[in-house]
């Protein structure tokens, strides 16, 4: 009868072996701890920053989920429209996970004042609904967001206002082509100026009241889109599904933010890919360190292993023992690493960092607030653990094989 695995003995031996050279073990574990902390920290940072980017962008643009008329996203013209009728309203109000919604009308126009003219994106919004759904009102720097006594109020991006040299109280001429294909022009009064983080948007956005927009563009009670705010980014897919089942999808298309801004999804994916490549290189470097430690531990013990084999410990047992040694080494680093990384990330999650200098300029160029936030998702420590263990399992193979393959006779002869 062959003896079964004596895991008790093997693990005891492995544990003792790990501590035979505490200095070496400490250095190897330190390298692993460093890698684990860096991996967990970077992944949490990317998760936080990306989620913030998505949240910031959808709040300026069309919400986490956008409802549009059929075909609107392909062409973005007034021909594709929808209506916010009672049925749609009740679905939006009764669906769990909807934090708010705002109807909008979107078109283009020429805005001019004296000799300055600029092509602008005109968005008609319902000021009461917009509050809390999108962040446009929060970017207001001066004046009021479409409220007050002014007839046909308009809110402009700061750079646009500067370009047109207009200030609050000034009137500007909006010219465009209406839904009826006739020319439309009218004077609007600037009641507020916003400072939008994305420069391109800040240069070209004019916000007016939805009611004024519908009459200016002869659009009746039609709208271009309904921006829906989800309770959180991760809940978007399930929200899209439940809205699709509850709304009349022959008249209303339900789009997650990825449909509206595929470029954002792709850029985030590339950013993630770049980060994971760097982290992989880091983990490989650390893996070589573990490999070296175990291999040295095996080579300097060749005689001892020979003796153990000669005494009757099976090669499989020796293999398991050395394997366990590697896993223990990696595991120690992992546990210590997580013990440092998790509180660290939680601290930064509560205390985000505001960037300055070149980094700030670049993030603003891409239209995002120059802020680094962290978010620890459950998958992060789990994924890091699996990666480090996976790498350890692969690296340990060579020394473990080397240890169990030694022929006792050769080893004992060399004594």
């Amino acid at each position, binding site marked *: 009868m062959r003896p079964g695995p004596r895991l008790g003995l093997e693990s005891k031996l492995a544990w003792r072996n790990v501590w035979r050279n505490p200095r070496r073990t400490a*250095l190897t574990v330190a390298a692993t701890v460093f890698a684990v902390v860096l991996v967990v920290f970077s992944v949490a940072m990317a998760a936080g920053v990306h989620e913030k980017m998505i949240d910031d962008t959808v709040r300026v643009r069309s919400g986490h989920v956008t409802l549009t008329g059929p075909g609107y996203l392909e062409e*973005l*013209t007034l021909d594709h429209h929808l209506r916010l009728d009672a049925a749609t309203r009740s679905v939006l109000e009764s669906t769990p996970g909807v934090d708010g919604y705002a109807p909008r009308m979107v078109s283009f126009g020429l805005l001019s004042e004296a000799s300055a003219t600029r092509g602008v994106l005109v968005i008609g919004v319902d000021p009461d609904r917009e509050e809390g759904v999108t962040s446009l009102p929060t970017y207001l720097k001066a004046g009021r967001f479409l409220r007050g006594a002014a007839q046909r109020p308009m809110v402009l991006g700061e750079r646009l206002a500067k370009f047109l040299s207009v200030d609050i109280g000034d009137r500007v001429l909006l010219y465009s082509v209406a839904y009826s294909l006739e020319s439309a022009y009218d004077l609007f009064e600037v009641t507020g100026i916003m400072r939008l983080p994305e420069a391109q948007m800040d240069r070209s956005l004019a916000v007016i009241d939805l009611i004024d927009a519908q009459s200016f563009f002869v659009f009746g009670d039609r709208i271009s889109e309904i921006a829906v705010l989800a309770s959180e980014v991760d809940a978007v897919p399930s929200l899209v599904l439940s809205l699709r089942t509850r709304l009349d999808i022959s008249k209303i298309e339900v789009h997650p933010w990825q449909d509206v801004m595929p*470029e954002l999804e792709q850029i985030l994916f590339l950013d993630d890919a770049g980060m994971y490549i760097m982290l*992989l290189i*880091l983990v490989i470097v650390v893996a070589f360190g573990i490999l070296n430690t175990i291999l040295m531990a095996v080579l300097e013990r060749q005689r001892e292993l020979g003796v153990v084999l000669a005494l009757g410990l099976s090669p499989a047992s020796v293999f398991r023992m050395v394997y366990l040694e590697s896993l223990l080494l990696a595991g120690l680093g992992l546990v210590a690493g997580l013990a440092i990384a998790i509180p660290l990330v939680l601290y930064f999650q509560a205390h985000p960092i505001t960037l300055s200098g070149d980094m700030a300029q670049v993030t603003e160029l891409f239209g995002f607030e120059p802020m680094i936030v962290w978010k620890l998702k459950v998958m992060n420590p789990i994924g890091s653990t699996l990666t480090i263990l996976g790498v350890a399992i692969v690296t340990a193979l060579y020394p473990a094989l080397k240890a169990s393959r030694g022929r006792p006779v050769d080893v004992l002869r060399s004594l």
Partner: protein
Amino acid sequence: MLVVRLAWRNIWRNTRRTGIVITAVAVGIAGVLISMALNYGLVYTMLDTAISTDLGHVQIHARGYVDSPELARMLPNDGRAALRAVEDEPRVAGWAPRLRSEGLVSSPYASVGARLVAIDPRREASVTLVADSMVDGDYFADEPRRVVIGQAMAKRLKVGVGDKIVISAQDLEGDLAGEAMRVGGLFRTASRELDRGTIFMRLEEAQAMLGVGVGLSEIVIDAGSRVEAEHLGDALAAALPTLDVQRWDELQPMLVYMLDATEQSAVFVYLAIFIAMAFGIANVLLMTVFERVREIGILMAIGLSRSRLVAMVVCESVFVTLVGLLIGYALAVAGWYWLRDGIDLGGFAEGLNAYGMASTIVPVLRIEDFTVPTAVAILTALLASAWPASRAVRLKPAEAVRHR
């Protein structure tokens, strides 16, 4: 010299162990260098896209035009002084006059805001690449009243080559001018902004429509290369003191910030990777010191001074790191050469083009990209040898020689 030779021999005493450390350093360095090269590639496509589609290397404007680009702020005297200076300057590789304004472009289906860029088609082709980026129709063939627009804008307006569009813009008097034109051709570049929002017209037609005589907003100049642009910009600025002469990096400082930010992040990445390596290097050095206690004792006993002993350990560390570094550099250069035709990220074109980056990424490896890793590597080698060296010098020769 003796110490150096000793150190070199020592590192090859256990080839397997040294080999693993060297491999770790080489793989780490090569990986980071290639990744950074691709990163720089991405940033440089952004620069090149901006320069080759719109910006040029140097632009000449009337004072203050860039801050408030109004139609009325044209080059004084129809740009005569500027044109003369440009023609007299031998370093100019190509130049083109432009008139710019903002307008609304309408089709029977939709209207979009657009930048009107009125050009001399032949001259423009010597500076920017729009003429080479046509995907349909042609670039200003003989018929008059033809415009060239981006494919993305055409899609939005639901028009194709030969269809009529109406361009509305404010003229010099402040009145709204409208002209019906036909789409002569469609272009597609790596810049979404250009493709969605720019309409190219013939210079004379735009000048007539906007009532500006033969006025010009800007002169765009190709200097041949980004490096040449610097000297050329300075020379033209000196020749034209009353005008604004600006280089691409002054017109779009963000592009430079982008490059700087990438360089800064590279330093962090190298630090992280090398700290991870330092543990491995220190570990191996420590092992070599402890398994040579006796030998070190003998060396000391026969007169090797403590400072030379430290030098020996430090040299071992530096050798291991440098050999790894050089192999890493060789691998990186090989990888760079292998990827020289670029990596096609066509699947991500939408995202990349949205930020003005091309979807084929050619890795960019510059001489200066080797300075940071070399510096960090030497620092790492010194750091990693500190502990082992300090253990070695603390050995007492008398006890060490008796070590088992």
